[in-house]
């Protein structure tokens, strides 16, 4: 990089909702600084860039690429490889790129079932000819192609090497700004970068550390879904029987959801030292259930506990809402002859 040359920034979306792009704009007036400091060289959401522009850059041309979105299809994967090649620093930006997030919830089912729901059997669908997207379609003018839709949604680091992870759905503006400052400091003033593979823009402990609700010893008789109760404004939500993933989620957002009475959904992923957020949550929540003791007959014990366990609706979808792709097993079994 020449003395006067600005560092180059790119941002790209793979399988995502676009909220991550908005979160970058959400850093408010700092966005002007971003524009001042960086040369934006690829950012399809906000300006007209083409893939051929990207391809024409020499390798390593981009200093920082914020990659958001999961790897849902072959195009996402191709773009991940291309951006990896063209970027010095590749950041898995947001929960989708980091750990699969909402798109990866479809790892709880199969590609065929997803297509069925989206294109065929759905009250809002009118598709009498049962048309579903094909990878190759022949028309008079020639062949039309679509990317291959994978059976399994993957995180960015499952297809390319990732330098940093910035968790959150979406990441919180102060955290984004802090991370950008570190990167700018490194690029312009030679300050040290965080160690490779680090999770940046977040804490290391569990979210409960940031949560201001009052915590007592936890003991829960049954679980409630959010519509069933009006939570007490000051007490720990989990103690009130509301599933709150705070105990198995990384701090960093400032406990925004619990502060307004909604249990943590877990979008910052697992805290330091935990591989599988869902399994950890499952473990924690089961041990605070206040049901069953040694005095009971074994059958009674099992029945009583099962009753309480069954008040947790959709445990896989709840505990793995954001981390399915990064979970130990990554997807569910399809039944016979998996593919």
């Amino acid at each position: 990089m020449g003395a006067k040359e600005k560092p180059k920034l790119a941002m790209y979306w793979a399988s995502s909702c676009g909220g991550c792009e908005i979160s970058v704009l959400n850093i408010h007036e700092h966005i002007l600084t971003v524009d001042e400091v960086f040369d934006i060289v690829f950012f399809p959401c906000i300006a007209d860039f083409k893939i051929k522009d990207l391809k024409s850059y020499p390798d390593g041309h981009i200093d920082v690429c914020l990659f958001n979105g999961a790897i849902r299809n072959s195009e996402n994967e191709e773009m991940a490889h291309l951006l990896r090649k063209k970027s010095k620093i590749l950041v898995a930006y947001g929960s989708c790129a980091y750990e699969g997030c909402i798109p990866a919830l479809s790892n709880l089912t199969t590609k065929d079932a997803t297509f069925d729901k989206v294109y065929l059997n759905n009250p809002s669908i009118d598709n009498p000819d049962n048309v579903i997207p094909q990878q190759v379609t022949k028309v008079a003018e020639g062949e039309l192609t679509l990317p291959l839709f994978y059976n399994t949604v993957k995180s960015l680091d499952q297809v390319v090497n990732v330098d940093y992870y910035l968790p959150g759905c979406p990441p919180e503006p102060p955290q984004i700004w802090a991370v950008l400052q570190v990167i700018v400091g490194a690029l312009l003033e030679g300050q040290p970068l965080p160690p490779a593979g680090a999770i940046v823009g977040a804490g290391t402990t569990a979210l409960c550390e940031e949560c201001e609700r009052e915590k007592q010893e936890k003991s829960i008789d049954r679980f409630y879904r959010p519509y069933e109760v009006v939570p007490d404004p000051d007490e720990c939500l989990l103690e009130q029987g509301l599933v709150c993933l705070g105990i198995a989620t990384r701090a960093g957002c400032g406990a925004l959801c619990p502060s307004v009475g909604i249990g943590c959904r877990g979008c910052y992923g697992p805290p330091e030292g935990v591989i599988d957020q869902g399994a950890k949550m499952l473990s924690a929540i089961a041990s605070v259930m206040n049901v069953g003791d040694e005095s009971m007959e074994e059958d009674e014990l099992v029945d009583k506990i099962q009753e309480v366990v069954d008040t947790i609706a959709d445990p896989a979808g709840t505990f793995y809402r954001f981390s399915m792709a990064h979970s130990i097993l990554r997807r569910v079994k399809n039944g016979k002859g998996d593919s």
Partner: protein
Amino acid sequence: MSEQFEPVIVGFLCNWCSYRAADLAGTARIKYAPSLRPIRVMCSGRVDPQFVLKAFINGADGVLIAGCHPGECHYLNGNIKTLRRFLLLKNTLSQWGIEDERVQLQWASASEGIILAERVNKMTEEIRALGPLRWYDKVLGGNGAVPIPVKEK
């Protein structure tokens, strides 16, 4: 005909009762299926559900958790917590298409070598009927893309 499928069952046995039951099964020369790969833990309550998932991704066909009978846990109620976790884990795993027979819980006191051995035999048969799990190749492979490398952290 191809050879009979020999399931691999990872067993988490607590130090105070069920591991001793397994020891007793050995010293008493009780014959049982060679499918169990025992791992000694201090208490069945030490079995983090992550261990079970890790066993599966690394090739286990089944996981057996064994502990002291309720009321006899060396740490008072570790095994009650185990039972709660186990039931919630089963609810979760059923959403993952993992059959109930693949994750089992058995209480066995130090004198119940025979009970543990019988459970291993029964579980081995049940899993043999289900067939191999082979999560890594069968579930994660064949994705229309290269198989995902396992990252050990």
